[in-house]
């Protein structure tokens, strides 16, 4: 059986370790990279090194940040009393897109998942508690994913955050806006029914 030269195999192995990339995709990407102009490949390599060198985690909220403190945490216009707790940096982007939230964030960098060896100690929960103690925070909104791990994390946070004067809320789950009821899956519809509200008239 023919094998690849060592550098090619190394490349394939490295790509194969990326999330969502299987052995076949890794091979395809490797061959693509070997075929393109030197310039294109170098551009990718440089983009990776640049990003790794310049981007770290914000020391306050643990979102991705170019400086020591991210742009959101250093923005004086932001409401200092409200904190939105999310699992990953990409969730910050999702909430930001709504333009509804004016407070600041705290990124846990994961959710409790013992099967993956992630307990509360592996998350940025100690740091969250320290912030709640030190900053003038009156409300924490828990925006973890509505799956079992996210719900468990939310429940855990609601317990450790039980301090007087602090309100802890959980985002609601329900139906997508602009959608049709008949296309909603039973679980979502069931949750939406559970979380129903009185219709405000006028």
């Amino acid at each position, binding site marked *: 059986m023919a094998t690849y030269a060592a550098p090619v195999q190394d490349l394939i192995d490295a790509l194969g370790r990326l999330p969502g990339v299987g052995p076949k995709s890794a091979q395809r990407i490797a061959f693509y990279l070997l075929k393109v102009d030197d310039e294109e490949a170098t551009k990718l390599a440089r983009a990776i090194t640049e990003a790794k060198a310049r981007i770290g985690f914000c020391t306050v909220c643990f979102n991705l940040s170019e400086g020591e403190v991210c742009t959101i945490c250093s923005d004086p216009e932001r409401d200092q009393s409200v904190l939105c707790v999310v699992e990953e940096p990409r969730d910050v982007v999702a909430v930001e897109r709504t333009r509804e939230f004016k407070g600041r964030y705290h990124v846990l960098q994961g959710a409790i998942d013992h099967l993956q060896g992630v307990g509360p100690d592996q998350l940025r929960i100690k740091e969250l508690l320290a912030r709640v103690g030190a900053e003038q925070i009156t409300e924490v909104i828990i925006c973890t994913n509505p799956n079992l791990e996210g719900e468990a994390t939310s429940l855990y946070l609601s*317990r450790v955050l039980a301090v007087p004067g602090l309100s802890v809320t959980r985002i609601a789950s329900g139906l997508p806006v602009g959608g049709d009821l008949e296309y909603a899956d039973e679980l979502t519809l069931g949750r939406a029914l559970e979380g129903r509200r009185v219709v405000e008239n006028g």
Partner: protein
Amino acid sequence: MHLQHVWLNDFRSYPSLDVELPAGLTALLGRNGQGKSNVLEAVAYLATLESFRGAPADALVRRGASSAVVRGQVLVDGREQLIEAEINPAGRNRVQVNRQRLQRTRDLVEALRVTVFAPDDLELLKGGPAVRRSYLDKALVLERPAVDSVRSDFEKALRQRNALLKQCKGRLDEAAGLTLDVWDLKLAQAGEELTRLRRDLADRLSPVTTRAYRDVAGETSEVRLVYVSEWHERGLAAALVDSRAADVRRGTTLVGPHRDDLLVLLNDMPSRTHASQGEQRSLALGLRLGVHRLVTSRMGVPPVLLLDDVFSELDPERSVALLAALPQGQTLLSSATELPPGAVADLTLDVTTGRLDPR
């Protein structure tokens, strides 16, 4: 629900097969090892995406072939549904309903439902509690596909809690205790719900199973199904608290629905120890037909009934009684012997080495 047409490619012993089926009774007759059960297995696969014989995917593919295809056309409520399943032991299985990729296995229930009775079902009475729990859970999904999420939530929470317990290595510090509280709550919620569903099903199954048993056995015995959970009176939340120390020591969850059992009583005596061989066979059939009747009344249409080698399990009188009391709807049965006297099939197929010849 009428499975009108079945096509097989490289499934088990069949390089290819194309067979039309009537709405009533189809009998597949032939000596052992000719491929009768394989046809039933293929039909059940279309509805459940698994082998009722517990065979792995690679056993379903004909030797020498790389993948197998099972296709079936079903008439449901006047609409034709085409189900196509490709079995790829090396890669991903593909399933389409009306040429649309299937999102979730349980959505198949809308297109095709089957009730299977196979010789292995004697395990329902002789086997361990896991067999009976799985019997209940599968029946629940057949009745209401959405409740599958209750079982899967419970199992996920259980896996998480067990992983945490294992990581504790026998000692529980304060932080781990707090996390354990969270999983206890999640486990108790899902576990109570799952148990409520199972218990309710067991209650509803008792009368229909009794009727099915009487039809087959030709006597007036009473079958009662009792769902047994040792923790039930205390509630799961309290039971988990009681069991916590032991759970930590053993590194696993010792109490909950995953340890429950279904007791099958015949005239108020445990059938496992008190019923005769023949009674147990009739009971196993009764349990399957009970679910069949329940699903029929819930859905308004009977599932397709698959009876694998059923006469080898029953004496001649019981065989005749079974056929006389066969529920409405489509039935496929396989047998190594001729049908009992008096029974008429709508279609009789002689099965010889992978060939089906209509009589």
